[in-house]
């Protein structure tokens, strides 16, 4: 029976467990708990496991498409010809895997008879037996370097590492819904497999006896921040440096030359833009270091999200529209500058944490696409702007830029008065908000002198709300979170009084959420 290794993102564990249980019920041995034997590093273990299984089931989700670790495993599986992908969220897989048919289990109810699930089982079964020798297969052969070529019935990855026996069937991702064709196990292949297994065991035993140091990066509470996964890091000890990524359990292997004596020279530097800083003075060194790997604790302080990334608004294809947009952006910029300076002078935000967050707040205007500068006919509203991006794209930009929020939208004339303009903004705050407010805050506001304050302050309200959520994510004290929310509360109340017809729905929702957060904070305060 095919041995299956499941590659997934830790936040998806509960959903993946159902797939694993069903596969195990069908008799497939499944490896999915990432236990690292003492004395070995994760990449060594992974390499061993990937080498020893017949199939790597890669579970794509909102979380895992962002995980460098899952992508690394997927790439390796693809290279080895053991790649079977499934989707559990409606997200496109990372670009390099999109051409490979992927079963969609987003709506899977757990039934073994589900056609999508059956296609997965068939694909896994198809990897059970290595295929016929070179020349017998029905797909186009790739070169010795494992290049990707177009095969019949879809794209297939054809791995041909020179050190491995040639595989002519079902290399990479077998086309799903196509049962694997049983192959012939040749003697030399069997010999190679046995040799490989023995070698793997020997390597594993060797690793057990050779301790390798590592660090586990945690937040101040000793927990592993999920956002750390995939963060690129460089460990330096004197002139020696080693780069790599942090795994989903917040572990990072150190150069083997690290000793207790040299540990004090260790410096961990996250790649710029990763959003994390590491307090290298916060190590807790276990007595048996370096024999115990991954037992050194370091505090990873998540850095604040401070950027409002302004994406090109659509509709800016006439001079009056561009002029109106520049006025709009001008007052937002001005608001951010002075709001920042007001916050900086707020006693409750004078502490080191909040000051660091506030001092770096900024607008970054992302360059407009060439077609945005054209003077051609107006494009459809929504095309090319923030609302034209799918969730995955927005999340990717938000995460990669470590933004507090993405601001985008459209600008157009008011339907009832073509001399006046209205702006439909969207403020995307990614994963910050776990509330009903959701990830995107839509703000439809008019551009006119009478709406000067409401348009500007509605955007400021959303920004302050996001700042409060980020302060909470960073573990700042309740008074800091409250100071942001209180400022937001005052803005919301002022908006309410200056909106005789009532607050726009989206603004009212933010205001309600601000109230709710403040109620929770004050409620906690009252508890004995």
């Amino acid at each position, binding site marked *: 029976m095919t041995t299956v290794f499941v590659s997934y993102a830790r936040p998806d564990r509960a959903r993946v467990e159902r797939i694993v249980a069903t596969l195990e019920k069908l008799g497939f041995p499944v490896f999915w708990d990432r236990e690292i034997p003492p004395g070995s590093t994760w990449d060594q273990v992974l390499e061993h496991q990937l080498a020893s299984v017949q199939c790597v089931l890669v579970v794509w989700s909102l979380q895992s498409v962002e995980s460098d670790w899952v992508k690394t495993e997927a790439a390796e599986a693809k290279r080895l010809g053991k790649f079977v992908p499934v989707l559990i969220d409606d997200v496109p897989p990372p670009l390099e895997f999109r051409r490979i048919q992927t079963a969609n289990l987003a709506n899977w109810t757990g039934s073994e008879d589900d056609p999508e699930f059956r296609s997965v089982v068939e694909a896994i079964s198809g990897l059970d037996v290595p295929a016929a020798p070179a020349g017998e297969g029905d797909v186009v052969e790739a070169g010795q370097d494992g290049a990707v070529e177009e095969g019949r019935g879809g794209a297939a990855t054809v791995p041909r590492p020179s050190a491995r026996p040639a595989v002519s069937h079902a290399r990479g991702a077998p086309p799903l819904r196509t049962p694997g064709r049983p192959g012939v196990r040749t003697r030399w292949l069997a010999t190679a497999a046995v040799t490989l297994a023995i070698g793997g065991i020997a390597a594993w035993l060797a690793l057990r006896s050779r301790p390798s140091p590592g660090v586990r990066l945690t937040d101040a509470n000793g927990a592993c921040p999920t956002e750390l996964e995939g963060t690129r890091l460089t460990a330096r000890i004197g002139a020696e440096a080693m780069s790599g990524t942090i795994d989903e359990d917040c572990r990072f292997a150190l150069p083997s030359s690290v000793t207790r004596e040299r540990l004090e020279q260790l410096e961990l530097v996250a790649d710029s833009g990763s959003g994390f800083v590491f307090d290298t003075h916060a190590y807790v060194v276990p007595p048996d270091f370096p024999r115990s790997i991954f037992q050194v604790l370091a505090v990873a302080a998540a850095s604040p999200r401070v950027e409002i990334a302004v994406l090109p608004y659509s509709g800016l294809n006439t001079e009056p529209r561009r002029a109106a947009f520049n006025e709009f952006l001008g*007052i937002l910029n001005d608001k951010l*500058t002075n709001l920042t300076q007001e916050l900086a002078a707020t006693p409750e935000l004078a502490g080191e944490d909040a000051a660091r967050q506030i001092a770096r707040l900024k607008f970054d205007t992302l360059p407009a696409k060439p077609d945005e500068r054209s003077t051609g006919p107006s494009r459809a509203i929504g095309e090319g702007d923030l609302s034209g991006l799918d969730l995955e794209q927005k999340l990717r930009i938000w995460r990669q830029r470590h933004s507090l929020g993405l601001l985008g939208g459209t600008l157009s004339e008011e339907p009832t008065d073509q001399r006046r303009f209205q702006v439909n903004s969207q403020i995307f705050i990614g994963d910050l908000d776990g509330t009903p407010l959701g990830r995107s805050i839509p703000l439809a506001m008019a551009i*006119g002198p009478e709406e*000067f304050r409401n348009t500007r302050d509605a955007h400021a309200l959303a920004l302050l709300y996001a700042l409060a959520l980020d302060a909470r994510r960073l573990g700042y004290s309740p*008074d800091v979170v409250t*100071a942001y929310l*209180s400022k937001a509360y005052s803005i919301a109340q002022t908006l309410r*009084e200056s909106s005789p017809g009532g607050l726009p729905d989206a603004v009212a929702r933010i205001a309600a959420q601000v109230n709710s957060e403040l109620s929770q904070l004050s409620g906690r*305060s009252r508890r004995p």
Partner: protein
Amino acid sequence: MRSALKGIRVSRSRAHRRPASGHGQHAHRCGLAASFRDNAVPALVALVSLFAIGAPAPGAAQTGEPQVTLYVPALASDGPLGLRAATVLNLQIWKTLRRAPYPNPNGITFGTGLVLWDPSPLPQANHDSAVAAANVVGADMVLWGKAWRYGGGVAVQAYLTLIDAAADTMDRWTARVERQGAPVSLTVGLPRERYEFAPIILDSAVVESLESPAGLPIMAAKGSTEILGEVGSSFRALQQDGDWTLIQSGPVRGWLHLPQLSRKRSEVVDFVGGIIRLRRGDWAGAAQLLERVASNSAAPYPIRIDAHLMLALARSRTGGDRLGPIRRAYELNPHEAMTTKYECMEYVARLAAGPDAATSARLRQQLRGILDERSYLFSPQDPWFAKVRQLAGTRNE
């Protein structure tokens, strides 16, 4: 700082509250700023451009009275609109700097209020730039802003930046309480240092007027249509009478009618005037203006909240209900740490009055209740909070 300010000599340091000049001395002697001193003769009030005169700021005086200086640079704008709109605001605020009564049998003194006028805007329209400019000219407050062309109209966005508010002494509320045999003093100052006012949406007629070549015309007499000249960047204000101000601009002397910038009543003049009065020690006058701000529903909440709190602060000097305005501030936003500080201050002030044991116990209990309920507003390390906790004592005391 821009070079234009380099020639100005500042005769005092902001770090020390300036004593005002003695009675009978008048601010116009400096040739720098508009001022009202108590007992001053009305006609001897001056308002001139910093650049036109370039003379030193008013000298330190001898009586120990407070002197408060407001710096009003032109509003940033394209064209003359910002300069002229700032001129109007400037003169309207100047009109709030009231004199002590005359005759003055009770010897009421208000210290000195100055308005420094600058026909150039701040190098950058933001609070930090205002602080830097205030440090150069020796101002205690800066009213600055920007005139925005927006959506086919013009909006004036004004801001107020207070300098070293915490170092001030006239605008503080202090109470001393005996605690376990030792005196403990507690103080609150002005609630915050940076304010954003509600934007003033200029009427189109006002925009047209402020942008016209005639600018702000000087008339031959109040109510007259005979134009003698225009208020430029260099002028002196001599006398006020309702909406009219007697102006000396170069060789021209005449009356300027101050236009209302918008149909809605702006809180800018009342609020800035109120703070100047507060810092001059004109408590009753401050309360009068601040009450107007507190009840102005068009004003932003932070301004209204702080108007209530400063009203309580003024009443800490004059007497009168303090808890009322503090509670109204709390109703506007229950999550402001400063409002809670003021409320605590009220109970501490009552304790400081030396009530009987039962009242004292009740006040401490109320104080503990507030602190328990609103601890989320304060950092556990907040020294002010810790001190109030100490004063509130424990339930078993």
